[in-house]
């Protein structure tokens, strides 16, 4: 690092900075000094840093243009360490802090000497609009290669490669009146609304509230404007019903007055949130505000004029010049030329002169400017050249001269000889564009006002724009407008109007502005030096003209073809000028051309703020069963099933090594088939159904019959949607004549619950039936295997386990391990099985008791993977895996579960006879046995009949479930195959991505115990 440089452009006095606090910062490796109260931009200008970036496409040197959110060039990469990197920070919005470290976003190898700059200079037509489309269109495969190099040289900032050390909060807020912007209109509105008693939130994006009043030349109630700001803020902060949020950007206006406010709480202090009293601070807050009424006091952005060379460093907005001088005590140059179409911009020249520097000339496009500010400038001896404009800025890395020529605006031509004046700064102003972004987010298109030369917003009911946002610019009128808007909002929100008198501002007579957007040049637009419209995206007036010539007439198409208004800029400076140029080229008016749509967010928002606390373990809720801790202690591997954490398998240590999943699953499978295993099935959905019409209801929502299911009995049920497609299955037990317990798949629990409710509430409210989710209330443990009964006999005394009195598909109530339980003889493994349900908070001791007794029988815990293998061996489907919303019960071959003759036309029945459901050749569920028994087919693999068929091969189906069966010592699969039920024994082929082709035989879906004898023992 070299020695700090002097702040050559800092005035000896003035500005709102704290001169007693010197801050040191670095930019592109060079150390500089600034003051507390500076932005990075004002500090860079104070130090005479001209080039802050290289432009996106042409790699031209770029300097600071604006003083706020509309800055298109001064995008920096902020942050010292890797984790603290923040891309695309606007230097104009970044408060200076001691030790700040920033680099240019663009520019390789550096901003001063840029290799790509040659490209921009060599040929103006190297990158015409639509450049990417035209140049890199083919071959498509090369795009990734092109893009890598374009990105490297274009540079769009980079994300940190390390985790974010900061924390971010989301806050939910409600208010009667939300005021966006705390300039004169916003403060007046807030005061009027708050005095009436409404709950008011005021959000302002800047470091300090006050907006344009902070650099105003005007007096409010005969005192400097910033005094009124301070008093008003003091009054507002003393009111309990007012929340003032500074450094807070309203970024999105969403449906029904839902506004997102992004509050930066520590970004003015350091690149990561510093600790406060030993505690981590929240870096930013996202306020999710539901507002009753909204006042948009977002002000206006000054429009630059579009002239040749208007992007060379040293070209600034007139208003920005005033802001830097009056607010930061920085004059960004020595010799100023001002080019304007209106009176307001004269402030820049007056401020410049008062700062003790030279104003070379003012080029005023109007023939006879006669406002008070014009007169004041003339009195101060400033040369005013009327009917003229700066047609070209000269210079490469900094402006060194301005060419001023008389122009004919209507004829769009230069009408006299240009005069070249040496200068280092050109300020320009083409008037103001109301900041209508938030209003546009509500979906309302703005209206062009010829008398104000700008688009004013239209809004949905409940929203009002005030002040500059409504194209009202005279301070006295702005204050009145703000008071009226605030009062109206409070009244609409149900509060009494209170009279608030705004401060007195001496009236000032301003001359009428003229409409000037692109300044004509002696050469045609296509031949003149580049006249930039959108500095961030390097869109030129010539580019827009070319786009219109190539047939892009809709402004939305022009935008996309040229990239105007893209990116982080969102057209804040360039859009209106671009539309005006398109209108000129197309021979239309601006309102005829219309505007493009502004979209959220207004300025970029860091991802951390959007994410808030919803990251890491709080990303999504996790659901645990009552036995979860036991599973953890046993070293289970877990699988996510919905939000549930389910044991996947339980690897053991064998000879000092941990079993692989395949080894563990093989061991678990054999334990169930040969001895006894236990599954934590608590996650199954459970719905308690009661009411006199419960049985009737079940008959309507299930495909099979429920009329005769007796208390103590259990039945499997299949559920379809009304299109006849299976969507869930499970068992339902009759607990009493009017009382049933339905189980659903783990993932389907909430869906099935809502499904039952929607049919009951919307179609059959006359049925007297009630549903309650009891999934979490009952823990379920499945004890299954040949030794299951022996184990059960040891843990229950009051349930008769005799095979003839407690049969398959019966359930009994009693105590298990001393705990009241419901025991169901349901089997998802095909083995003898008891599903023990106990109240969840008693479950762990029951589970442990089962193991205390079960060890001698070889009781083995198994997870979901083994469960899948065991059920697939039996051909039991999993809804959502073996079905996909296009599979009917008939496709599954489950004719036994279809109540064709039930009296009520149950959900799904009618659709089974639709031509498409009834046709032959539908995909049907079958078993597949690979010819090579050691092959495990890939789930999802396509099935063909002729592997030698030319590509594309006709697809006959696909694999839905596939595993290795340790019991069969073979791979096996379930699949859907067209007409599969009629193709038993036939061969099918599965061509894989690696060129292998597997052959398999179509077999029954039941691979084990086809008569189902084992579950009945």
């Amino acid at each position: 690092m070299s020695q700090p440089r002097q702040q050559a452009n800092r005035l000896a006095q003035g500005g709102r900075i704290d001169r007693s606090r010197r801050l040191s910062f670095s930019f592109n490796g060079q150390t500089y000094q600034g003051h507390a109260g500076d932005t990075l931009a004002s500090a860079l200008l104070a130090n005479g840093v001209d080039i802050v970036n290289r432009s996106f496409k042409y790699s031209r040197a770029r300097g600071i243009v604006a003083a706020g959110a509309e800055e298109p060039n001064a995008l920096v990469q902020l942050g010292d360490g890797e984790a603290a990197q923040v891309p695309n920070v606007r230097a104009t919005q970044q408060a200076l802090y001691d030790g700040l470290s920033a680099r240019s976003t663009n520019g390789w190898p550096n901003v001063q000497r840029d290799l790509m700059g040659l490209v921009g200079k060599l040929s103006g037509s190297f990158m015409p609009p639509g450049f990417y489309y035209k140049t890199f269109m083919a071959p498509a495969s090369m795009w990734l290669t092109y893009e890598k190099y374009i990105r490297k040289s274009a540079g769009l900032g980079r994300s940190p490669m390390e985790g974010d050390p900061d924390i971010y909060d989301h806050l939910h807020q409600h208010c009667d009146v939300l005021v966006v912007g705390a300039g004169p209109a916003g403060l007046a509105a807030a005061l009027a609304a708050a005095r009436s008693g409404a709950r008011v939130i005021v959000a302002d994006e800047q470091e300090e509230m006050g907006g344009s009043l902070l650099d105003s030349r005007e007096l409010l109630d005969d005192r400097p404007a910033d005094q009124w700001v301070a008093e008003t803020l003091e009054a507002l902060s003393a009111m309990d019903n007012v929340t003032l949020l500074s450094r807070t950007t309203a970024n999105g206006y969403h449906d029904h007055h839902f506004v997102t406010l992004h509050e930066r709480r520590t970004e003015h202090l350091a690149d990561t949130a510093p600790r406060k009293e030993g505690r981590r601070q929240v870096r930013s807050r996202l306020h999710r505000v539901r507002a009753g009424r909204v006042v948009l006091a977002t002000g206006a952005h000054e429009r630059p004029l579009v002239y040749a060379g208007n992007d060379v460093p040293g070209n600034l907005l007139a208003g920005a010049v005033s802001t830097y001088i009056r607010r930061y005590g920085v004059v960004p140059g020595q010799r100023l030329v001002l080019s304007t179409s209106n009176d307001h911009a004269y402030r820049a020249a007056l401020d410049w002169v008062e700062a003790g520097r030279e104003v070379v000339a003012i080029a005023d496009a109007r023939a006879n400017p006669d406002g008070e500010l014009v007169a004041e400038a003339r009195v101060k001896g400033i040369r005013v050249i009327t009917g003229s404009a700066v047609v070209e800025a000269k210079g490469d890395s900094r402006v060194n001269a301005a060419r001023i020529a008389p122009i004919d605006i209507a004829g769009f031509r230069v009408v006299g000889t240009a005069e070249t004046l040496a200068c280092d700064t050109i300020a320009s102003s083409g008037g103001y564009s109301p900041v209508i972004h938030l209003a546009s987010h509500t979906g309302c298109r703005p209206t062009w006002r010829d008398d104000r030369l700008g688009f004013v917003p239209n809004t949905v009911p409940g929203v009002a724009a005030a002040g500059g946002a409504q194209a009202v610019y005279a301070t006295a009128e702005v204050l009145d407008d703000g008071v009226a808007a605030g009062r109206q909002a409070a009244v609409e929100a149900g509060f009494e109007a209170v009279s608030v008198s705004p401060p007195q501002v001496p009236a000032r007579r301003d001359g009428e502005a003229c409409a000037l957007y692109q300044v004509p040049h002696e050469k045609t637009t296509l031949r003149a030096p580049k006249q930039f419209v959108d500095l961030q995206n390097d869109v030129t007036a010539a580019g827009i003209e070319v786009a219109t010539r190539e047939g892009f007439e809709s402004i939305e198409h022009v935008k996309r073809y040229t990239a105007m208004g893209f990116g982080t800029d969102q057209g804040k400076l360039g859009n209106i000028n671009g539309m005006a140029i398109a209108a000129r080229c197309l021979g239309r008016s601006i309102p005829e051309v219309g505007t493009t749509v502004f979209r959220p967010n207004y300025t970029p928002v860091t991802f951390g703020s959007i994410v808030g606390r919803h990251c890491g373990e709080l990303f999504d809720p996790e659901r645990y069963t009552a036995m979860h801790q036991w599973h953890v202690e046993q070293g289970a591997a877990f699988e996510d099933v919905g939000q549930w954490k389910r044991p996947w398998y339980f690897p053991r240590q064998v000879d000092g090594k941990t079993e692989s999943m395949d080894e563990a699953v093989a061991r678990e499978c054999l334990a169930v088939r040969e001895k006894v295993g236990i599954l934590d099935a608590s996650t199954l959905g459970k719905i308690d159904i009661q009411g006199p019409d419960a049985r009737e209801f079940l008959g309507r929502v299930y495909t099979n019959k429920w009329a005769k299911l007796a208390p103590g009995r259990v039945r499997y049920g299949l559920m379809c949607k009304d299109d006849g497609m299976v969507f869930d299955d499970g068992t339902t037990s009759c607990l009493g004549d009017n009382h049933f317990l339905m189980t659903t798949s783990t993932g389907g629990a909430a869906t099935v619950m809502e499904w039952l409710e929607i049919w009951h509430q919307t179609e059959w409210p006359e049925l007297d039936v009630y549903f309650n989710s009891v999934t979490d209330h009952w823990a379920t443990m499945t004890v299954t295997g040949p030794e299951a009964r022996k184990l059960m006999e040891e843990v229950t005394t009051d349930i008769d386990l005799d095979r003839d009195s407690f049969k398959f598909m019966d359930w009994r109530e009693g105590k298990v391990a001393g705990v009241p339980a419901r025991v169901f003889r349901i089997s998802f493994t095909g083995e003898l099985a008891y599903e023990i349900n106990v109240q969840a908070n008693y479950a762990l001791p029951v589970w442990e008791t089962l193991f205390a007794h079960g060890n001698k029988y070889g009781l083995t815990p198994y997870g979901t993977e083994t469960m899948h293998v065991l059920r697939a061996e039996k051909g039991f489907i999993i809804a959502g895996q073996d079905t996909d919303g296009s599979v009917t019960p008939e496709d599954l071959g489950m004719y036994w579960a279809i109540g064709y003759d039930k009296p009520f036309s149950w959900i799904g029945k009618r659709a089974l006879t639709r031509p498409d459901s009834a046709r032959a050749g539908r995909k049907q569920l079958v078993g597949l046995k690979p010819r090579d028994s050691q092959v495990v087919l890939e789930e999802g693999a396509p099935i063909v009949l002729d592997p030698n068929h030319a590509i594309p091969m006709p697809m006959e189906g696909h694999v839905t479930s596939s595993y290795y069966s340790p019991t069969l010592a073979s791979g096996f699969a379930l699949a859907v195959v067209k007409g599969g039920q009629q193709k038993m024994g036939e061969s099918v082929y599965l061509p894989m991505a690696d060129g292998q082709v597997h052959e398999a035989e179509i077999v029954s879906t039941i691979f084990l115990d086809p008569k189902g004898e084992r579950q009945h023992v």
Partner: protein
Amino acid sequence: MFYIHCPYCGEHREEEEFHPKGQAHIARPQEPESCSDEAWGDYLFFRDNPRGIHHELWVHAVGCRKFFNITRHTVSYAILETYKMGEQPTFTAENPEGRPSVAADPASLREGVRA
């Protein structure tokens, strides 16, 4: 994000408490077996996609679990009314301003029913 008045809870709540369930007032034919395939196909698959007023079925999924109807404008996203199952809408494509007595009710305006 919508701000939805649940007609059963009687309160405005954030959209994340609700699930949309498609077009409202789609009644299941009383006698499916006597429906033609075409009529059954219409009932199953065909839905309106209007530009303007649309009646939608929603459920207060993490609230009272009740299903209810919303009349919503598909361009402005304004929710003109919410009403219980079995009730009929006040605002319709034929009558977009609603029944005068309801449209002029300032209380409903204040509560943002017509937000």
